[in-house]
């Protein structure tokens, strides 16, 4: 779903996401040109309808498991449920949709009940407030998948390593690296993952200036990528 600013003739950009209620999302958008803002609120039925399509919002980084939807949605199943940690990681790690991790925790059917230590909460305060819910949800999904009861700074570090686990294999040319640095810091990590995912899809081992040109055409407008 996209929103168009009729005045400026451009797609509105995601600004932040909130969870106003169980299985509901409040998503705020802003026009990049005139600054107009509004919020879209989904109800649980709408959230569930998307999950019934058997897709992961934001895309996948790994292939779906056989009968992933059937096994994951049956109330009483005699067979093993699909690996939720794989499901969560793929959804939260996949794609440019900034609230995929929030949705993935809803799609997995698990109500995440982990607690936060005071130190971990203080650390989250350093993250800009408009992406804090997304980051928190991502860490909660990770912690739940590992069976942690309390999120500590150590768990935050671990989740960062796990989510960035794929990034080590690819090389970046100096030019591409410089252009990555031009992306605002609060979304640089997400952009890096997405660019590397696209590079892998193309069978590349190095992210080059050419690759960055392609990426710019796709979502440079969101990321302020300079050439």
């Amino acid at each position, binding site marked *: 779903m996209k929103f168009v600013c009729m005045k400026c003739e451009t797609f509105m950009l995601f600004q932040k996401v909130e969870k106003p209620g169980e299985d509901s999302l409040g998503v705020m958008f802003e026009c990049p040109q005139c600054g107009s803002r509004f919020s879209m609120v989904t109800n649980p039925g709408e959230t*569930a309808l998307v999950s*019934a399509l058997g897709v992961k919002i934001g895309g996948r980084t790994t292939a779906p498991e056989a009968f992933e939807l059937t096994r994951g949605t049956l109330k009483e199943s005699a067979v093993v449920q699909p690996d939720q940690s794989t499901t969560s990681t793929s959804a939260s790690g996949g794609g440019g949709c900034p609230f995929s991790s929030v949705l993935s925790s809803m799609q997995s059917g698990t109500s995440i009940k982990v607690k936060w230590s005071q130190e971990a909460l203080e650390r989250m305060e350093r993250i800009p407030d408009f992406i804090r819910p997304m980051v928190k949800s991502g860490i909660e999904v990770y912690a739940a998948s590992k069976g942690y009861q309390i999120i500590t700074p150590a768990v935050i570090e671990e989740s960062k390593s796990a989510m960035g686990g794929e990034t080590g294999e690819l090389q970046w040319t100096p030019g591409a690296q410089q252009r990555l640095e031009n992306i605002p810091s609060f979304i640089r990590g997400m952009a890096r993952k997405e660019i590397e995912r696209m590079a892998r899809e193309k069978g590349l081992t190095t992210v080059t200036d050419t690759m960055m040109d392609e990426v710019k055409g796709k979502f440079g407008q969101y990321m302020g990528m300079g050439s």
Partner: protein
Amino acid sequence: MEKDLKSILSRIQYPDDARVVQQIVDQTLQVKTRMGLIRRKLVVLSGKGGVGKSMVTVNLALAFARQGLRVGILDVDLNGPCVPKMLGMKGQRFEFTPEGAIPPTGPLGIKVASMEFFLKPDSPVRWKGPMDLSPVWLGMMEMSVIREFLADIVWGELDLLLADLPPGAAADKPPAIVGFLPELDGAVVVTTPSEVSTEVVKKSIVYARDVGIRVVGLIENMSGFLCPECRAESDLFEGSGNVQELCAQLEVPLLGRIPLDRKISQACDWGIPLLEESEPIPGRFKEIAEKITQHVKMKR
């Protein structure tokens, strides 16, 4: 002047950052890839419930398997699966591998996929989700489950896949199946000798044709009664539901008639299928399979 959304959208680039469309395309491609290994696909349907679709499906599969064909059964009756019980396969499970779900193999090497293989004994199908909020959600969920049955099962190469559809003259399953399987070879329609049944079945044939399903022929189940002592056949419902008239009216071949038989009924209940063609009912199904082969080329 009010701006025109259509022209605005034609000028700006749509970012599919949720990647939903791409995943649905991928799902469709996966169904095509799996189904590409299966030579012929037939559905067994009827508008009427309780006419014996599953019994017909199972015995047709056995008849084709006896001819040496590699046969699979897809039990699409998600809420009332009974194919595994009839083939003595209750309690069996899929084997999940990175390549997909391996279906259990039953008598004569028939591969079977059924919702039953996911369920605990006596458990109905119950989903996590807003069933109370939205019947639309339930419909979409069932379509996705059928799509997984078509996309995720490692059938390997098969000569024939028979899909046992749930009842419903104008339900959502036939068009969904056609949507997933545009290369479907046709439908075998089951009826019983009653006017109530033939009336509903007539609607389902018209509906099947409307959604582009070719009707291969009609089978009249419970057409009579086979005496357990002398094996003589007698009418049960005299003069009811003239199936030949129905076939002539709709220009559908009559593939065969299957009488009630205590032996076949017990075989289905006990999960010990009758395999000998010398038995009257397997003999009838042999003839029906041969007739179907005249309409749909089965041999490799």
